[in-house]
């Protein structure tokens, strides 16, 4: 893959991430503040707003992986190898803590916990990337 194509691919992935993040923030903002008393269909529509941007972002990641060279693929694989056990550890611990002390749903519901999964991935990516830098 030449440098120009790689840059285009990276820009695509970053752009789709920005749109994904923006759509999530809009949906969260609308559901947290403006639409609590609105009709159900509007709230459901707001909740589903990030779905298409998320699919586009995942497609961009997959396309980027296909276009990557072998070292870049290894970095992504090592990122997953770090992120996946961390996600298991977090979810298992939260589940057990919920049994032990009854976690507050306002602090530990899905809407808060999912964000840790991409954070773990980016952490793993950073660790793996540094190894081969």
């Amino acid at each position, binding site marked *: *893959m*030449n*440098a120009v194509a*790689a840059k285009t691919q990276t820009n695509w992935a970053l752009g789709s991430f920005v749109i994904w993040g923006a759509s999530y923030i809009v949906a969260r903002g609308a559901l947290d503040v403006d639409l609590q008393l609105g009709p159900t269909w509007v709230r459901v529509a707001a909740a589903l707003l990030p779905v298409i941007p998320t699919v586009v972002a995942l497609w961009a990641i997959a396309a980027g992986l296909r276009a990557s*060279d*072998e*070292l*870049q693929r*290894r970095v992504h694989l090592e990122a997953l190898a770090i992120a996946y056990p961390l996600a298991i550890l977090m979810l298992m611990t939260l589940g057990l803590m919920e049994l032990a002390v009854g976690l507050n749903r306002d602090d530990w519901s899905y809407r808060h916990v999912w964000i840790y999964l991409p954070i773990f991935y980016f952490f793993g990516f950073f660790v793996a990337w540094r*190894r*081969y*830098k």
Partner: protein
Amino acid sequence: MKSRLRVLRAEREWTQGDLAERLEVSRQTVNAIETEKYEPSLSLAFKIARLFRMRIEDVFDPN
């Protein structure tokens, strides 16, 4: 695995970017191979050897 890639590249006065372009990989990959942080796949090793018109064992030394 020892690699002579840096020497071979320097002999031709290529930058890492030049070599990466010729091999269709990223500059980071070339750097990682040169600094022996990453061992290339067999297909990439063949590609490197062909580019320099050498045998694989003349570019990479497993010992």
